[in-house]
């Protein structure tokens, strides 16, 4: 049985309180990091752990820390990405609601390592309980001297505050998040320059997902070697998987990266509801291409999912049974992307709307013979041509649907209805 790391306190009463966190070994990595390590050693340790970002892209965390310019004379910032909005994903909300101090400890250590004295939490506006939990946790950390001036007598100071977003999925993208923090419309910036060189108010900024940061205290406490022994060589550590759809036990499961998809669906999630047949699985959130039943033995790791033609993304698994209409699935996901396109660049704004119109038409039984080709062509006109990765994300459900279930799309055109 895998020993839980990130969610180990989730079952305890008042797990969100600072008292419970400390009573269960919390805030022990902080003095170790501040008193026994210099920033360079911490960066080395995180690099050696192999920790990769949990916000979707899987970029090595230690490398990102290393990109931040050195020196104490430069103003630098850390941003904590709590904007979670990728359909199917609900791990960050749980982390914040159930164990916010674990994340705060990670933020303080990361800030010390990169030399930032100001950190900002950016939280999705809809997360009302999350906002309250963040504020309470931060107040508690200040009261104990873990935040503020001269933390634990180390000479290192850090201020942390909460900024509430206001309803825009795109603000989860790191440069849009920065724009929003600056009080502007959340429209992504051109990269490069990356936030590590030009970020918030033009200063070097480290942006991390909350799950990534929650790993940090454990790496400091138990060492990089322990951490990298979990998972696969290229995808180390524990991962919080979210599973929803047609399975018996929906929810979150913390498991080592590399766990086979089959084990998550049939053991942890208890198998398919009503023992229906599996039809398709979205492995990592709405923007990751689907897998088919013959692929359920794929290990859930960055590299293996890439080999299987998809992505680990946020680790949000959506399971669909034999009764699911794949055109309806694509329509529903496209509605999301069309709604959430920030409108800044034309291919994403008009392309998603055009694809949505076609999918609505197909689903309503009014599809025309040329619609499928137009759908594909429109997707290709977005691919690689948008300002930020949102465009590529938006076309994945359609392109993978067309690849795997083209006959179903054709059936909608010829029979004017769903085959299921």
């Amino acid at each position: 049985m895998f020993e839980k790391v990130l969610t180990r306190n989730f079952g305890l009463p008042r797990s969100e309180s600072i008292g419970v966190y400390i009573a269960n070994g919390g805030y022990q990595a902080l003095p170790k990091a501040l008193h026994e390590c210099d920033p360079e050693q911490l960066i080395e340790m995180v690099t050696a752990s192999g920790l990769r970002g949990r916000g979707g892209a899987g970029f090595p965390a230690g490398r990102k820390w290393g990109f931040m310019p050195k020196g104490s004379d430069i103003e630098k910032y850390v941003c904590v990405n709590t904007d979670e909005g990728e359909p199917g994903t609900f791990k960050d909300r749980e982390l914040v609601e159930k164990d916010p101090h674990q994340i705060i400890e990670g933020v303080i250590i990361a800030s010390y390592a990169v030399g930032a004295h100001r950190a900002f939490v950016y939280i999705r506006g809809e997360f009302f309980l999350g906002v309250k939990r963040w504020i309470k946790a931060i107040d508690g950390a200040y009261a104990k001297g873990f935040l503020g001036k001269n933390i634990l007598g180390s000479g290192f100071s850090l201020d942390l505050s909460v900024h509430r977003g206001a309803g825009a999925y795109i603000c989860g993208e790191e440069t849009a998040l920065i724009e929003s923090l600056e009080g502007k419309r959340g429209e992504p910036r051109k990269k490069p320059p990356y936030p590590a060189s030009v970020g918030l108010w033009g200063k070097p900024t480290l942006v991390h997902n909350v799950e990534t940061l929650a790993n940090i205290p454990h790496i400091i406490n138990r060492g990089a070697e322990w951490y990298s022994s979990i998972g696969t060589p290229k995808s180390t550590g524990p991962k919080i998987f979210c599973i929803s759809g047609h399975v018996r036990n929906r929810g979150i499961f913390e498991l080592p990266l590399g766990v086979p998809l089959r084990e998550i669906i049939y053991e942890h999630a208890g198998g398919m509801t009503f023992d229906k047949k599996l039809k398709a699985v979205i492995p990592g959130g709405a923007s990751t291409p689907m897998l088919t039943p013959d692929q359920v033995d794929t290990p859930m790791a960055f590299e293996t999912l890439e080999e299987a033609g998809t992505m680990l993304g946020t680790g949000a698994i959506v399971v669909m049974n034999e009764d699911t209409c794949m055109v309806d699935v694509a329509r529903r996901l496209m509605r999301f992307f069309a709604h959430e396109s920030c409108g800044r660049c034309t291919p994403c704004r008009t392309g998603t709307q055009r694809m949505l119109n076609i999918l609505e038409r197909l689903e309503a039984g009014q599809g025309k013979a040329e619609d499928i080709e137009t759908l594909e062509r429109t997707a290709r006109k977005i691919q690689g041509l948008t300002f930020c990765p949102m465009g590529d994300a938006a076309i994945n459900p359609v392109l993978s649907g067309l690849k795997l279930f083209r006959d179903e799309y054709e059936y909608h055109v010829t029979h004017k209805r769903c085959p299921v």
Partner: protein
Amino acid sequence: MQEGVQIADPARRSMLLTALYIAQEQYGYLTKDAIERVANRLRLPVADVYSMASFYSLYRTEPTGRYVLQVCEGLSCHLVGGADRLVDYLQKKLGLEVGQTTRDGLFTLETVQCLASCGTSPAMRVNDALYENMTPERIDELLETLRGYHV
């Protein structure tokens, strides 16, 4: 020009999202007056503040009912019998369409995208509160409770 303002006092502009929330709370929704006040206080162009209010979906420039019922129409909610089914149910029960408000001004019905409650779906939000594992029966109870506050 605008660049200059931001560099001179970046923190002031950063207050904008919070200021809009406060104004919305005080005025009920972002009226012309509310927007102008925020613009004046933060010394920003009114058009700029309007553009922010229209970009972010949690800001409202139109009045709503006392309770805004937001049903998630995301995939994970749909797969377990939520989304359309709950929207249809509420439309019939309240005698309105998505986007409309009941005549007594109590309820506005809206659909939203994934609320990050896919593991406890179907999900909906009422003002700031999240409701999970929703069914028509639980919707009945909820509406009754909310109405009870206003008799």
